[in-house]
């Protein structure tokens, strides 16, 4: 086995050092947001009377969404800064190096961040437009 070249960044390197956590992080936030939204809505609709004001769940929904998107933005920032991820890859990453791996993970994480953020926004929209149980 050839010796691997020194990695350039300070990103965690191999799987057992947790280097791929960033990949699963944003979809997990999406999943958590999805679940929590359902819980909050179900509890709210069960406890609040039919004609309850619509503002409270609205603020919860917006707050939760903004918070989740903020965390995702932070993840995206890490993906760019530490992993050197970019949106568009023009040269295929074929290099079998730590640098190449990091770039690839950064790229995929970035795309997943965008996907998750869009999904969360789509999740919130119906609540804001309809606002009833």
């Amino acid at each position: 086995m050839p010796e691997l070249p020194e990695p350039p960044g300070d990103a965690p390197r191999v799987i057992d050092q947790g280097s791929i956590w960033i990949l699963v992080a944003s979809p997990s936030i999406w999943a958590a947001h999805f679940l929590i939204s359902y819980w909050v809505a179900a509890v709210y609709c069960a406890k609040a009377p039919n004609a309850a004001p619509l503002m409270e769940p609205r603020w919860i929904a917006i707050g939760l969404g903004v918070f989740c998107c903020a965390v995702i933005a932070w993840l995206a920032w890490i993906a760019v800064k530490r992993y050197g991820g970019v949106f568009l890859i023009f040269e295929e990453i074929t290099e079998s190096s730590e640098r190449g791996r990091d770039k690839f993970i950064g790229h995929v994480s970035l795309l997943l961040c965008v996907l998750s953020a869009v999904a969360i926004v789509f999740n919130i929209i119906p609540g804001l437009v309809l606002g009833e149980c």
Partner: protein
Amino acid sequence: MEHLFWVLLIGAAVIWCIVIGAAVYAQKASVPDREQQARHFIVWGGAVFPTVVVGALLVWGLVILKDITPNEGDRTIRVDGERWWWRVVYDTDDGPVPTANEIRIPLGETALFKLTADDVIHSFWVPSLGGKMDMIPGRETQLALTPQKLGNWGGLCAEYCGGAHALMRFDTVVMEPDEFDAWLAAQAQPATVDPEDEGYQVFTEEGCGSCHTIRGTDSIGPVGPDLTHFASRERLGAGIYKMTPDNVSDWITDLDNMKPDIDMPSYPHINGARLEALVSFLMSLE
């Protein structure tokens, strides 16, 4: 709402042409050194553009949904889905007016239906007047309909609810507002029944009154449809048979053929003069 259809149709046609055009172009053109552009095209055309379009359609669709599900109407009608018929109650200033298996609404006014279910999930649907809405046990759902044309529009249960599901329909009669008011006032009245009436005697002897209510008499059974103004309905048996003496007679004696496996027993032993008296009594409940 009609706009939505055309926008979707034309939009879909345009997008289809672009996609097919791109595919044809890709087949024909030799484009080895345009990879850079191609990637931009994929990201903008394949990800950003669809996301924006779908997002916009989502908001638009939701706004329409909000419009067609208002929370108030000019009058409230409560409909309870039962296996396999409809309990209908008009809320009026003078209290509730119960009927069954037929809905009448005035032209041009928004009727707000408050829908519940007694046993299993049913679904309330008058295709000519609007969307359908599930009726869920333990919950109240709402549907607002604003009829634009006079006429009799068929309604039905749109969620499988057991054996006689396919025979669970109702008529929705759209009337001029003043005719409707007169009709509702008549429905609010109790029936005029002579307790000595021969047919009514049969009705009580056979125990029909333990399931059916005829307001203004001792029959106050809550199980089956309210029969106070039974003969004023256009149809019998949850909108499935013409309201004729023959059909009513068959309904009583040959229910297994008319509407099998429902929660009313058949009474094949009622016959002759007793049956005639019972049927003409029922047909007098206008």
